């Protein structure tokens, strides 16, 4: 049966929603295994201390306790690995200190795990953990990003100055020459505030060992179960990869924080064989705050050189990036490869130089969080461009327009090759739908109510669909960055799709089914999408960096193409035609120019009941898999406009309007795409107005709960006006898609802060850091004193 109209491009309702809406989803903590036991991790209350001794005897003897393990017990296993080697300017490799699964000689951040207690119940495990006695020798804590390299205390002995690497990109001499002849230079110091991801489902794991076949099963909240398995077995535990099955069932949000291999699930797998019982651990929210990898945390200076017409001549950036206490799985590539390469933005700046110093501190490890490097680059660039416009008295959109890249492909001075884009189109559209012309009237109306109204812009670019494996490898990646997919056609013509991408809210079960159903001319309900289980899916690199449809979807299409190619051979045999004469369209194999045809389901049946079948030339069955390694990143881009009202008496900021115009190339499900943008906007606006992770000088996490860390709630946010332009399709994947998952979080923070600064310009405020809390805004107004 062929679909009446194409499914691609339609906002079909999601296939996964029934189970989520009825409470029948299955998240990791929902799974309880026979003979289940429970774990509690004892964590460091100190940011930095040597461990003199750990006494566990009392805990081991406590009621219900099955085992207590410390770092000393985990002998012969490796540390948690980092997947990307960055080299310093002098060619030396980054400092790569061991990240032990359980602390050995030292604890290095509040929440660092020291001991694993396994008991019959969570309550018993927690009670026993409280009986463990640890003799600490406290050390001074290194906390502040900007001064970590001068702290005088080493987080790790192998990095005495706490510097992991000092990396650079771009042509320094060309940049200096351009600055020497500039008519105007705009300078800005900028902080990108540390964030805590806060997926609403806390991390969890449930590990079991089967003596019967010497195998392990791990249920875990992961965005990439195959990568989790590979890193855990090959680099840490030394287990045979094929005897470990990792299942990431329904996962309640990730935003990057569930990409990484963490200590907890690794310790559970190690312990499961020793205890002989399945072990479950679910983070309490305070553990999520202390141990989920954090995001951002940059301190930077930016200098933009312009000629008298506002043409950008060069950009010079210095950034200090906080990596936290240990190198998390992809930590090293975030403030380098995924950050500095984006500093061209949408502009044809001829010369860019960026130097990045990455430092260790006694704080939670920092890694990719929605956008991962690209929000930091966009915030820095778009704040700087807006300031330049203000200084040179040029309308901010006009200054951007004068500098847009207009010819593609475009080779940027920081290593990327943009395949396509139309920045004028998204800017024009957003100026229109945001009714920028009506702003002066709205500003006057706000002023009548005693409120300061401001408008701010942001034009972002993103690099998604990471990336060609060979290029990534040359840049230091220790993993491939392809994706795998499989199409299993059943004898009845129904189809199961297996994908290495992982959906934790993105709706792949619907989007991928739309793509496959369209290609094969099937109804949506005849296509089922499976993911998240190394026991079902052949391989996968997982979901992050807005890569799933561009990379994972393309792998699936390659497999579909193989199915169609084989189907044509089967049809040619049945229709007594030559292979070359068979066409496939709308679910039917047809001899070109005739009415001789076979339906897709007839071909599927013939493949599995091969009575009349070219067995001498063709294997029976209809099942294909494919791997796809992209030839380039994809480059989504867009323009955002934010309008705020600031109450000068209280410093309170209200987002009055937020308008987004995005170019994601082709769009499969507009409803899902808009939802992704909404979510990104909420996280970006959260960063701009509410969220900020704070540590005390001695390394205590001050924002360790929802009463201290301000998450955006429904009343904090406006209704969004989001539009996707009829965009420029990606040139190098068959769907022409680019990725949409991070755009909102990348583009929105500078739009919000630029709007606040516009509102406060008349009061003399020229700079403001995120989050722009009422107190901070009020202080800025008082300090400016006008």
């Amino acid at each position, binding site marked *: 049966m062929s679909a009446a109209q194409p499914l691609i491009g339609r906002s079909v309702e999601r296939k996964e929603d029934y189970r989520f809406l009825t409470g029948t989803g299955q*998240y990791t903590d929902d799974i309880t295994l026979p003979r289940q036991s429970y774990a509690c991790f004892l964590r460091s209350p100190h940011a930095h201390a040597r461990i003199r001794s750990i006494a566990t005897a009392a805990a081991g003897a406590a009621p219900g306790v099955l085992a207590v393990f410390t770092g000393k017990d985990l002998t012969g296993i490796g540390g948690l690995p980092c997947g990307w080697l960055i080299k310093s300017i002098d060619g030396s490799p980054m400092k790569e200190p061991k990240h032990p699964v359980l602390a050995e000689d030292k604890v290095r951040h509040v929440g660092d795990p020291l001991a694993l207690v396994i008991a019959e119940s969570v309550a018993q495990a927690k009670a026993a953990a409280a009986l463990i006695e640890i003799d600490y020798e406290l050390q001074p804590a290194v906390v502040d990003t900007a001064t970590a390299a001068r702290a005088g205390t080493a987080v790790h002995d192998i990095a005495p100055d706490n510097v992991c690497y000092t990396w650079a990109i771009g042509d320094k001499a060309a940049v200096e020459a351009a600055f020497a002849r500039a008519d105007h230079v705009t300078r800005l110091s900028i902080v990108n505030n540390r964030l805590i991801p806060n997926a609403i489902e806390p991390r969890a794991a449930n590990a079991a060992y089967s003596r019967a076949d010497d195998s392990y099963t791990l249920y875990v909240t992961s965005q990439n179960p195959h990568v989790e398995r590979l890193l855990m077995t090959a680099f840490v535990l030394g287990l045979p990869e094929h005897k470990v099955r990792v299942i990431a069932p329904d996962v309640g949000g990730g935003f990057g924080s569930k990409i990484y291999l963490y200590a907890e699930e690794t310790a559970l797998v190690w312990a499961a064989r020793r205890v002989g019982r399945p072990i479950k651990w679910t983070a*309490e929210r305070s553990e999520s705050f202390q141990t989920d990898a954090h995001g951002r945390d940059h301190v930077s200076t930016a200098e933009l050189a312009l000629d008298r017409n506002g043409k950008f001549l060069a950009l010079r950036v210095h950034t200090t990036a906080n990596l936290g206490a240990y190198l998390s799985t992809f930590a090293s590539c975030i403030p380098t490869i995924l950050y500095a390469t984006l500093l061209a933005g949408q502009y044809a700046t001829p010369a860019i130089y960026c130097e990045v110093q990455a430092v260790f501190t006694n704080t939670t490890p920092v890694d990719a969080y929605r956008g991962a490097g690209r929000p930091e680059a966009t915030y820095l660039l778009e704040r700087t461009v807006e300031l330049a416009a203000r200084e040179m008295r040029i309308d901010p959109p006009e200054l951007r327009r004068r500098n847009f890249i207009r010819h593609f492909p475009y080779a940027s001075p920081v290593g990327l090759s943009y395949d396509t884009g139309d920045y004028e189109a998204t800017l024009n559209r957003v100026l229109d739908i945001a009714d920028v012309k009506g702003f002066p009237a709205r500003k006057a109306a706000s002023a009548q109510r005693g409120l300061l109204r401001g408008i701010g812009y942001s034009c972002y670019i993103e690099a998604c669909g990471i990336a060609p494996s060979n290029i990534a490898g040359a840049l230091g990646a220790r993993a491939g960055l392809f994706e795998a997919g499989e199409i299993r056609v059943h004898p009845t013509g129904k189809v199961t799709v297996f994908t290495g991408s992982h959906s934790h809210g993105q709706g792949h079960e619907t989007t991928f089914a739309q793509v496959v159903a369209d290609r094969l001319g099937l109804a949506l309900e005849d296509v089922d999408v499976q993911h998240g289980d190394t026991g079902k899916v052949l391989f996968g690199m997982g979901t992050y960096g807005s890569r799933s449809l561009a990379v994972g979807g393309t792998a699936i299409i390659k497999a579909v193409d193989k199915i169609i190619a084989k189907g044509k051979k089967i049809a040619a045999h049945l229709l007594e035609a030559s292979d070359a004469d068979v066409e496939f369209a709308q679910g039917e194999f047809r001899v070109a120019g005739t009415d001789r045809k076979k339906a897709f389901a007839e071909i599927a049946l013939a493949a599995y009941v091969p009575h009349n079948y070219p067995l001498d030339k063709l294997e029976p069955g209809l099942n294909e898999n494919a791997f796809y390694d992209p030839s380039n990143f994809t480059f989504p881009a867009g323009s955002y406009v934010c309008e705020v009202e600031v109450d000068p008496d209280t410093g309170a900021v209200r987002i009055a309007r937020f308008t987004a115009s995005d170019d994601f190339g082709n769009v499969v499900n507009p409803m*899902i795409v*808009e939802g992704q943008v909404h979510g990104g906007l*909420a996280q970006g606006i959260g960063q701009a107005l509410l969220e900020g992770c704070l540590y005390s000088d001695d390394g205590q996490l001050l924002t360790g709960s929802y009463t201290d860390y301000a998450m955006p709630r*429904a*009343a904090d946010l406006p*209704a969004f006006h989001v539009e996707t332009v009829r965009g420029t399709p990606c040139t190098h994947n068959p769907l022409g898609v680019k990725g949409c998952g991070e755009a909102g979080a990348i583009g929105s923070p500078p739009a919000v802060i630029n709007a606040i600064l516009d509102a406060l310009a008349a009061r003399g405020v020229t700079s403001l850091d995120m989050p722009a809390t009422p107190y901070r805004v009020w202080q800025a107004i008082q300090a400016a004193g006008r």
Partner: protein
Amino acid sequence: MSVTIQLKVNGRPVAAEVQADTLLSAFLREHLRLTGTHVGCDTASCGACTVHLDGRAVKSCNVLAAQTQGREVTTIEGITPEDGSLHPMQAAFKACHGLQCGFCTAGMVMCALDVVTHQPHATEEQIRAGLEGNLCRCTGYHNIVRAVAQGAKAMGR
């Protein structure tokens, strides 16, 4: 110390012996295996565990199972029709794409039902205020707010 409780869960009588410090969320999830109610924080901050207690939305991580003696608890499983269809509020969330990862969804739907039951013809502002106790990290609330309004309309509220 354990206590014996008798209550109604999703319309059916339940009798159980629980530890005095057992939370209602744990009782539902672990004793009754009603895992549609999720726990996101343990501190009454995120609302993922929202259920109805005698018809009002409560955060089940901050109610002791012992406190439900003689009372009536409704969970997401309890509002779901048995014929495989959806409650009008559930259907509105689906139609409006008011959910992504699904983890906050049960609590969000249970809260939404309380909002529209006790505030007929709620405005967007009232809906946003009514959802104040429930965190969603995926949707930015835009489509949840639309869903609640649409669900209310479908329910004749």
